[in-house]
């Protein structure tokens, strides 16, 4: 499904954050050693949803291009809500990294497409991407340890 509207993009952001939160909650159950980190990620996801929704509901007006700001394909950003069944810790971490890469790509693309049009929304996409990017070295470090 193609996404052109801001409402659609906000819903996709919410879905990505919620689904990836579920992923990390499952990680915390399966790999208890690092559960605090994973639960922290899941908790941060909820904050990102609030941050993005607050930006959107705060600036959306009839005067800006809410219905024409995006050209995204929802299918490009599908993620899995749990690590693969029976995945080893290393493989689950690799899946987490792949998921993060996809979500970062989404935020960067959405921010770039709407930067001239949607006021505070692209700025918040970029801010969330920046914060999420901090997870990548942490996940990579865990992966190195797990090898």
């Amino acid at each position, binding site marked *: 499904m193609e996404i*052109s509207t801001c409402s659609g993009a906000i819903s996709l952001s919410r879905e990505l954050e919620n689904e990836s939160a579920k992923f990390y909650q499952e990680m915390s159950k399966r790999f208890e050693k690092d559960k605090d980190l994973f639960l922290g990620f899941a908790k941060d996801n909820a904050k990102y949803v609030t941050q993005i929704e607050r930006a959107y*509901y705060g600036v959306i007006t009839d*005067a*800006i*291009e*809410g219905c024409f700001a995006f050209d995204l394909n929802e299918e490009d950003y599908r993620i899995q809500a749990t690590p693969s069944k029976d995945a080893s810790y290393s493989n689950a971490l690799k899946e987490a990294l792949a998921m993060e890469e996809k979500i970062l790509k989404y935020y960067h693309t959405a921010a770039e497409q709407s930067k001239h049009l949607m006021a505070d929304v692209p700025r918040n996409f970029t801010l969330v991407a920046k914060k999420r990017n901090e997870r990548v070295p942490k996940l990579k470090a865990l992966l190195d340890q797990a090898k």
Partner: protein
Amino acid sequence: MAILEEPIKGVKEVKNYINGEWVGSKGKIVDVVNPATGKVMGKCPISTQEEINAAVEAAKAAFPEWRRTTPLARSRILFRLKGLLEENFEEVSRIQTMEHGKVIDESRGETRRGIENVEVACGIPTLQQGYYSEDIASGIDEWLIPSPLGVFGIIGPYNFPFMIPLWSAPYAVATGNTIVIKPSSEVPFSQMRLAELAEEAGFPPGVWNVVNGGRTVVDGMLEHKDIVGITFVGSTPTGRDVIYKKCGETGKRVIAQCGAKNFMLIMPDCNVKATVPALMTSFFGNAGQRCLAGANLLIVGDDNKFYNSFMEEVVAMSSRIRMGYGLDESIQMGPVRDKEKRDKIIGYIDIGIKEGAKLRLDGRKPKIEGGCPDTCFVGATIFENVTPSMRIGSEEIFGPVMSVFRSKTLEEAIQICNASPFGNGHAIFTQNGRSAREFQYNVASGNVGINIGIVAPVALFPFSGMKDSFFGVLHTQGQEAIRFFTESKVIIQRWF
């Protein structure tokens, strides 16, 4: 992406809100139809003269006590209303989509714009302050008090059922007046919900009243001796020949914000990538049913290569617009309000063809997503080779129809804009500051856009308008609204 849940289930009865009570009407009842689905969602009364009288009487009775309520106390009620509107933001927005047809992003935008007016009016303790001069002559002081006047009538249109009454209502009550709102009978639910929230916020009975109906209610308000002023948004013939004229005859203050035919000027140096989406919102947002919509696209310069490539981008994006029910988040354009309006727009497209304009994109048989009936839908339509003498280039169509003009120079383009009887929201798209300044300085338009397709002032600025787009002196929103809803009492004092 989701199809959002409808907040109104079944068929809901619309009631009047008079003196703090929800009351039925003895008037004729008309159906309120969701234009996207074709389903009847409500029954709205066309209220009687007695019901108008009752509302005005309640408002008049509430005025002395409300006037004596301190500005800080009035402001606190407005703050509560603002909080309730935020809490109910999504519901209020979805109601607009259901009753009007606009898509959910547009409805949320309308809600936000409405709330902004409540926020500005919350500043009434300072906004309504007067001023004082000591010793204007030896031992004599003089000061001014902005005083409320009494009962105001607020007549809302169908195209922005929630927001437009809020261009006036918060300022009217903040300054100590009382109000009677008449929503359009086609879209009464937004104002019904707003009145419920106003009641919950704590406005005393009689301060905020709603009487539903049509032309008879408008006439009743215009004739009523106890209504001291009217704000109106609607067509130019009604605004000029009925509202403005009648208010003059009956000595009422008036703000009549009316029709438009807005030009969007495209300079060859514009940022095409950002301009084209802005034009989509301008021409086709709200299905073209707004007085700030782009109507005429005027491409400046004789560079045919630029013209052709720009128009290709515009046509390509316009032809991809997804139409359907606005509660589906993938939809970019909803229906127009009803079949009568659709037929009028289709009539204009037929006129354009007869006038000899080139129909580049035909919206008469649009593709509609989600199985909605086509009763109220018109697709994006683009005419090229339009001239100012053509009806499609000069009359307000109020639908998703773009008429494309060309001019050799910016000077000629501004002359074309200024020859229009309307002056509501013209805009220029350019990267050149000098062109932008030439345009804003010379164009006769109350709201002027520079790289902005919908020139809608935020609540702290007046919603301006010139020529046949506005009748009155002061405008709604911001400081001008405060002045409109107060009269200046000047006191000169000497003590012997």
